[in-house]
């Protein structure tokens, strides 16, 4: 074999998985130092590619995906249909449900309207051993970074958020890994995976 012929196919030799075999190629490389050096370069390049470690997904991505799928269930009416779809349809019952939520807001300290008839709400939760707490819900597209609660002197966590009127679901993310429904909000919506999100109707 001539060097020019060898050079044209040297790269395939560096990847034996390709199953390419040419008679005389190996012999030529053993005899020709120039082609051997060239082959060495190809082999090194393949070794570099093989050495690439897998890239790890950012923290929280798996949980974000589960939440997105649960949301899709609700929007397509697969599993959470009953909870949200009935409210606007039931007229009087819907009104009563709304009143029930308003009453629950006054009873349960988690959802306190700072100024009635505005869309700004304070979410408050007690997680005494937490080092960080985030409010995550469909109003912030389940973004875990968007609404970090601040720790108060009495140990409770709190955040005031502007939200347009509507029906919402939310959870607290504690220490960046533990998902908790609001422990004292009685409105619970199945998340489609055996757990519950907290519900909020404004």
């Amino acid at each position, binding site marked *: 074999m001539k060097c020019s012929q060898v050079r044209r196919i040297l790269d395939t030799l560096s990847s034996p998985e390709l199953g390419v075999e040419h008679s005389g190629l190996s012999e030529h490389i053993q005899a020709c130092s120039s082609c051997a050096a060239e082959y060495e370069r190809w082999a*090194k*390049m393949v070794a*570099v*590619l093989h050495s*690439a470690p897998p890239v790890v*997904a950012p923290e929280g991505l798996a949980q*974000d995906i589960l939440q997105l799928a649960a949301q*899709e269930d609700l929007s397509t009416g697969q*599993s959470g249909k009953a909870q949200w779809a009935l409210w606007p349809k039931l007229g009087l019952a819907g009104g009563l449900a709304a009143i029930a939520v308003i009453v629950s807001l006054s009873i349960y300290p988690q959802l306190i309207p700072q100024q009635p008839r505005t869309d700004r709400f304070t979410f408050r939760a007690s997680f005494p051993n937490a080092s960080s707490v985030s409010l995550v819900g469909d109003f912030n597209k389940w973004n875990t970074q968007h609404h970090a609660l601040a720790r108060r002197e009495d140990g409770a966590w709190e955040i005031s958020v502007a939200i347009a009127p509507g029906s919402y679901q939310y959870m607290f993310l504690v220490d960046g890994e533990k998902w908790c429904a609001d422990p004292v909000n009685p409105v619970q919506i199945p998340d489609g*995976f055996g757990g519950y999100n907290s519900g909020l109707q404004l």
Partner: protein
Amino acid sequence: MSSDSSTFRELVHTYTDYVYNLAYRNLGNADDARDVTQEVFLKLYRNMGKLDAGKSIKNWICTIAINASRDYYRTHRRHRGAFSLDEGLIAARNQGHPDNKLLVEKMLSTLDGKYRTVVVLFYLEQKSIAEIASMLKRPQVLVKVWLHRARKILMKNFAEEIS
């Protein structure tokens, strides 16, 4: 809880890193990879009923991830010659040989579309030519030609850094 939901939750926990890695290697951008990963699992979720117990779920997920990445690339075609430091840092936080991590990132960033995809599948994921051809729905001989061209591009640009 339905069995589909339970299976889906398990798949998400098992394969999120795998899908993200494929998308990141194909697109070279963390935000794009995140978008594609979410899209892949939503597709999977909508098609849970089509899961075939007799076939490899991993291969099925790989095929969806590769095709979603390619669709994303076509829709959001970008200039990807430039190597971003941020992406280098993302690679650097992962395990492996410290010098090669950045070098592989740079090498892939010089390849476009199909060339990048076949290099990722053949060298990084160690798929066979037959598997790649089946995933991309292209003849095996064409996959080999793409690989050959991709290798030439890489050697042209990185001969000095490699040797």
